[in-house]
């Protein structure tokens, strides 16, 4: 079974992020790293391929400046190869343009299953994966907390607010996985050294049969008009315990109807 994992290479979340002043898009100038939330998808894909007893995991990514640092991390975990779409024409792409590009790249790998994270850690739109499935014309299941593949179908426990739904669709399909679907492995030193020799196919927009005007800022149907800082969280109330602290706790819990 062949699985494609959509992986995003993002600016290190440990550093404060920046937006461009005019278009309000994320600045991606420095070294990019593998989005932590994608490590779960890579691990899930590796386990599914293992369980199927054959096939391979292919990474698909779209990133500026021919960036491969994050791909190398996922290749070191055990993915076999990667397809990277890197093109100046992609700057300013909205989620739908990104989905068209990823879908076109995914087709080349002819996978049975596509796995993505529920959302990226930098952009957080959370819409790209299902758009990819729609462009491909494949079914998609989001928020998977358990994934199993058997007899041409994928069975998923889909996280809900109150528990989970059991959902089953036929392959090929796209599944987005939550953090915690599996515990990602640490890349071994052998994996890190082997990753250097694994193929990364780099493509331009035109290689995918797309027109530059369909993607990037030119093709974007979405515009970020303005950006405001999130409202600061209000400070909590400090209660000094003068022997009656427990009464105040009880009163507070009653007020919010916990007791």
């Amino acid at each position, binding site marked *: 079974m062949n699985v494609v994992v959509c992986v995003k290479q993002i600016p290190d979340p440990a550093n404060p992020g920046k937006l461009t002043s005019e278009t309000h898009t994320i600045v991606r100038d420095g070294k990019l790293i593998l989005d932590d939330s994608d490590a779960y998808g890579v691990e899930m894909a590796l386990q599914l391929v293992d369980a199927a007893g054959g096939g391979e995991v292919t990474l698909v990514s779209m990133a500026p400046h021919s960036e491969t640092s994050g791909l*190398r991390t996922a290749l*070191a975990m055990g993915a076999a190869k990667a397809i990277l779409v890197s093109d100046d024409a992609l700057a300013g792409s909205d989620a739908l343009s990104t989905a068209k590009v990823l879908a076109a790249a995914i087709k080349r790998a002819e996978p049975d299953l596509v796995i993505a994270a529920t959302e990226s850690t930098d952009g957080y739109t959370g819409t790209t994966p299902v758009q990819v499935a729609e462009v491909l014309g494949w079914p998609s299941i989001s928020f998977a907390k358990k994934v199993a593949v058997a007899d041409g179908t994928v069975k998923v426990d889909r996280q809900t607010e109150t528990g989970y739904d059991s959902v089953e669709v036929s392959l090929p399909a796209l599944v987005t996985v939550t953090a915690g679907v599996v515990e990602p492995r*640490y*890349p*071994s*030193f*052998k994996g*890190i*050294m082997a990753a250097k020799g694994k193929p990364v196919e780099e493509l331009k927009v035109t290689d995918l049969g797309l027109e530059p005007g369909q993607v990037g800022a030119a093709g974007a149907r979405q515009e970020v008009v303005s950006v405001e800082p999130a409202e600061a969280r209000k400070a909590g109330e400090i209660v000094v315990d003068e022997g009656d602290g427990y009464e105040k706790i009880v009163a507070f819990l009653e007020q919010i109807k916990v007791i």
Partner: protein
Amino acid sequence: MRFALDDDALEVSAAVASFLTKECPPELVQAAFNAGGQGPADDLARSLGEMGVLGMLAPAGAGGAGLSMVAAAAVLAEAGRAAAPLPLTETIALAVPLLASAGDPTGILERVALDDERVAVAPCGVAPGASRAGWFLVGPDPVLYRRDEVTLERLDSVDRTRDLATVTPAGPGIVLEGRGPGMVERGAAAAAATLLGLGRGMLDQTVAYVKDRQQFGRPIGSFQAVKHRLADALLLLELAAPPVWAAAHALDTASPDLPRAASLAKAMASDAATATARAALQAHGAMGYTDQHPLHLWLKRTWCLAASHGTARWHRDRIAAALQL
């Protein structure tokens, strides 16, 4: 000569750093300290074995990754930064490469790389990690002994994760032929890398602490007396780093300068880490003097490693002798 960290060294050390950040927090180091270098430390050793860290200097065919000593030094620096409660200096940089270069006479190398078997190293007759070891490498011209060929006598260490014992051979053992550069140089270079990381770890924690701790209505890190001490510590650590990488590179290239390079690295890294330990302890208002604050774990490891594999003074004398001063 280019001895700066190459891509391999940067990648594997970054992988170890990210592993240790998650899997070796100060609470685990403290728990390992309480358990005398066992318990959680054993789990950590197994994971490091699976990752290929322990066997990184063994050839690719023998369960290793065939990496360079420069890469090993970068990894040991990260192990030091996290105060990983294991004798990694000895396992990674002494036991594995010495066994490998001697042709693995007892066929244990792959098991050692996976932590299925442990080899304790005692260049001067004292071995860290002694109680769990099945084999012992003893003496400056190392001879390999099985556990039942030596007598162990437990030694207390200020750093309880060290699990020290004096090792007295009582059997013929196996002399390691063709093992390349000696225990002194390997041990000094590796300990220097670990000390550099310990120093960096203490400085990181201290900088975070002085930014947070308020006195007279402002963070104590805003006071010049504090800032200058920590800047001095950073300066010493930065100065010690190139000699550490150079010593590792000298081992990789079997340079004739190796004895001097290894001694320079150990002398400078010992001094830098010890001075950083003092500054860190003072900036923490002497917290770390007791074991109520995790800083003590770094301090004690630093003191122990500064005194192991030759003190700074011993190495400076060696440099002087090499320069015929």
